[in-house]
C-alpha cells in the first residue's frame, strides 16, 4: 500500500476525528501527524485498505481521547477556538452547526468520541465498540445520554429542536 496515497486519502478523516474531539485545530493537526507517522511504522502489519481504515479511526480516537484527558486543565474556551473550514453546504443552518460542534466539545471525552464516530464516520455501535474497546451496551448507553444532553442544551439555547 502506498503511504503517500494513504495520507492524501485519509487526512481529512483523521484530522476531523481529532478536531471534533479535542476542538483545537493545531493540536488536531499534531495528533493527525502522529497518527500517520505511526501508520508508516506499522504499515507492514496492516493487511488491507479496510484494515488501514479501522486502524486509523482507532488510533486517532484513542490519541485524541488521551490528549483531552492530559490537557483538561488547559481547556481552550470553545467559543474562541478557531474552526476548520468544512465543505460548503447549502443545507442546514451554519450557526446551528457551529453551536452543535461547541456542545459536542462539552461532552465527556468518551461520549464525545462515540458521537464523533457515529455521526462523522457513520459507524454502527458495534463498530464503535470495537474501535474504542468498549462493550456495545456501554456505547449505546453513552450515545443515548449524549443525545439527550445535546438536545436539552440546544433546546435551552436555540429554542425547541423538532424531534
Amino acid at each position, binding site marked *: 500500500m502506498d*503511504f*503517500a496515497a494513504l*495520507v*492524501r486519502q485519509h*487526512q*481529512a*478523516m483523521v*484530522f*476531523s476525528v481529532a*478536531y*471534533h474531539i479535542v476542538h483545537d485545530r493545531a493540536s*488536531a*493537526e499534531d495528533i*493527525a*501527524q502522529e497518527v*500517520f*507517522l505511526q501508520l*508508516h511504522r506499522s504499515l507492514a502489519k496492516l493487511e488491507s485498505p479496510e484494515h488501514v481504515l479501522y486502524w486509523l479511526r482507532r488510533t486517532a480516537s484513542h490519541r485524541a481521547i488521551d490528549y483531552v484527558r492530559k490537557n483538561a486543565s488547559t481547556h481552550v474556551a470553545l467559543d474562541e477556538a478557531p474552526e*476548520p*473550514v*468544512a*465543505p460548503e*453546504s447549502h*443545507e*442546514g443552518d451554519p450557526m*446551528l*452547526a*457551529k453551536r*452543535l*460542534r461547541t456542545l*459536542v466539545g462539552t461532552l465527556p471525552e468518551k461520549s464525545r468520541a462515540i*458521537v*464523533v464516530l457515529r*455521526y*462523522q464516520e*457513520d459507524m454502527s455501535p458495534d463498530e464503535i465498540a470495537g474501535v474504542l474497546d468498549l462493550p456495545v451496551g456501554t456505547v449505546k448507553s453513552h450515545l443515548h445520554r449524549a*443525545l439527550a444532553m*445535546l*438536545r436539552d442544551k*440546544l433546546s435551552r439555547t436555540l429554542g425547541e*429542536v*423538532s*424531534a
Partner: protein
Amino acid sequence: MKHLEDELRRALRRADPSPDFAARVLAKVGEPTAWDKLRAWFAPPITRWAMAAVLVAAVGGGAAYEHERRERERGEMAKEQVMTALRIAGAKVRVVQQKVNEIGAQEAEETNGL
C-alpha cells in the same frame, strides 16, 4: 431526535487540515531518526573496519602497557633487594675492617714494647 441526528451529521462533516499537511507528514517520514543516522554512519565497510582497528589497537595497547608496568615493578623490587644486600654486606665489611685495625694496633703496641 432524527432531526438532531441529521444536524449532528451536518455539524460533524469531515474538514480538511492545512493545505501543506500531507507534505509535512511525508517530509517527516523521510527524515532519518537519530538512531538511523548513527546506524548509517557505521554502515560503510571502511567505517566498520576502522572502528574494529581502533578497538584492537586500544585493547592491544592496554595489554602492552600493563605488561611493561609489571616488568618495571619487578625490576624495581630486584634493585631494592640488591641494594639491601649491599648495605648488609657493607656493614659487615666495616665491622671486619674495624676488627682488623684493632688487631693491627694491638700487635704494633706489643712489638714496640719488646
